[in-house]
């Protein structure tokens, strides 16, 4: 089962490598991983999407929590949450027809065109991981994809709940 985990940890050198190392050392999957500092510069926040049974997830959560740098970990999958991912795609748009169809697909998904080359368009979409997959599929039907880069999922609790240092 797919899970989305949110971790806050000390913004110390090596902290990220401990998280990544833990996942490879204990043979847990990482489907995506994003990391950055927060409003408090001393704290980093990581979002990891992973796969695993309930039992594996319990171990992952406990093992991550055990790392000395980690302040908190939550499994967002369990609660009502918001999830977003950013994708940038460069596609072929060499003629009128392909430019029109790429523009149409981008509009339908609520994306935007960030840049135009001689024969390419560069597109952006912010959405759920699922929707990004159908965006790619729809573009594939219209033109050739040249390059794709994705941020990995980001997530936080809906409503007033928050993951903060208490």
């Amino acid at each position: 089962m797919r899970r989305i985990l949110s971790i806050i940890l000390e913004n110390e050198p090596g902290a990220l490598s401990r998280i990544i190392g833990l996942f490879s050392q204990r043979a847990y999957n990482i489907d995506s991983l994003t990391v950055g500092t927060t409003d408090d510069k001393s704290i980093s926040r990581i979002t990891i999407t992973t796969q695993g049974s309930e039992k594996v997830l319990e171990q992952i959560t406990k093992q991550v929590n055990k790392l000395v740098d980690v302040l908190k970990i939550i499994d967002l999958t369990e609660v009502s949450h918001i999830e977003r991912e950013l994708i940038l795609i460069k596609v072929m748009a060499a003629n009128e027809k392909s430019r029109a169809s790429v523009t149409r697909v981008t509009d339908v998904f609520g994306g935007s065109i960030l840049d135009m080359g001689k024969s390419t368009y560069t597109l952006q979409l912010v959405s759920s991981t699922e929707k990004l997959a159908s965006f790619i599929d729809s573009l594939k039907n219209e033109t050739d994809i040249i390059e794709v880069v994705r941020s990995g999922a980001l997530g936080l609790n809906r409503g007033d709940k928050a993951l903060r240092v208490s």
Partner: protein
Amino acid sequence: MSNQKMSGAALLIKALKELNTEYIFGYPGGSVLDIYDALFVQDDVKHILVRHEQAATHMADGYARSTGEVGVVLATSGPGATNCVTGIATAYMDSIPMVVLSGQVPTSLIGDDAFQETDIVGCSRPIVKHSFNCRDAKKIPEIIAKAFYIAKSGRPGPVVVELPKDILTPDLEFEFVMPKNIKMRSYNPTSKGHPKQIKKAIAAVLSAKKLVIYSGGGVVLSDTAEQLTHLVESLNAPITNTLMGLGGIDGTHPNFIGMLGMHGSLEANKSMAGADVILALGVRFDDRVTNNVNKFCPNATIVHVDVDPTSISKTIQAHVPVVGDLKTVFNQLQTEIDNSDIQIDRAAQEDWWRQINNWRDQKCMSYSKDSDKIKPQTVIETLYKVTNGEAYISSDVGQHQMFAAQYYPFAKPRQWINSGGLGTMGFGLPAAMGVKLAFPEKESVVVTGDGSIQMNIQELSTCMQYGLPVKIVSLNNRSLGMVRQWQDMVYSGRHSFSYMESLPDFVKLAESYGHVGIRVDNIEDLEPALTKAMAIKDRLVFLDINIDETEHVYPMQIKTGAIDDMWLKKGVKA
């Protein structure tokens, strides 16, 4: 004094002194020369010069296991640091408090593949509790204080501190500032068990008809043997220990049913399999205990207390998990027992003990003494006799380790020093040296074999330099006994590379290092030789004992079976 400025290296030594460091085990080299210079000008922290950094880690480990204090290692960058890796992993697997100070090339050279540069923090990352890249001399005392605190608190473990040469230099001086109390917002080990869980735990324990207490290294590490013994007696429960937990209760206590697991006693493994409630204290349901997890104790309600939440329900699902430090949890359990209305079913308990005594009557530890050759079990029994069961026993890894665990009933915690988790050959001699330094008046014995002893035999030289009269009891079977046993049992007797064709004359070897060597070939010489060795108080004695190479360790669990599926003797199943 507090205003006096000093170099980074001097800050380090002062910090170690403030933390009551008695010994550092180390080896000098380029990147740590400033530290060695700072060591030279003081007498508070004593340095033991080893012959190989791996041995330094095991000495610090033996010191830590026997005292409960943090063991401290100092190594230079590059090879010095990488030589520590096995010892760090050994300490990590057995949750031993240790701080490893590693030199590093100057900050300006890090990443340039400089001479003797290794990313030791990266190398050791999967086998440490935590590590620090120290980049600011002023912070050395704070980092050392944190390292000690992390190493010792919660579930203990090794901490690596990397110190680049440029922050140690005498050219730059700083004030000594060390926090009195360490507070870390990201690290707060749980001490108290959740009251609801304590209630549930005791309800299960008191309602049991077939209770077994299964305790491990956690009891030894938390110094709670007394509380454990009290609990066992107040419940009149049978108790088994893991390999790491031996000495948690006196090995001659009437309620003690022996070690459990792969080479555990019949009564311990049978009791576990038959139990309706298992009270697991400071254990981790290791694969060397459980055998096939799918067949593990199907009828038992499992109450599991441990300070580390990851140990709970990792391999075996706990029905009543309790996260907490045994130091606190034992008191909580005892209070709950005192306040509970639940009456122990004494008739059921009597039946249960009758059953257990039937298993005991099978005398699974009996062995044949009919051959002319010295049996390894006899050596351990004789060692027990001549040391009155009071020696610190450090062991290497292999058959001799299991024989020591089985035939030397440990009266006290911290008396039995062995690499249980990682199974590190070469651990025994340096560990026993660490013990001897901690307790010069006590007998510190190494139980080893002709394979293991050669993995750190260079430390005989260190023993000479510091006058460490440890006693080496080497069970010499000209083989890697445990490998050979598996080859006998699983590989149709094909002894692939498990025998040694060119053993040294260990007696002469010991003598060449300035020690006493005694060879024992005949059973009638065994007890006199051991007695003589123990009577020599001021010199190291190496006993090279020629034992029966065909002997196997029994009982032994049958692979893929349940906990109590076991061989009792060659060809005899339980």
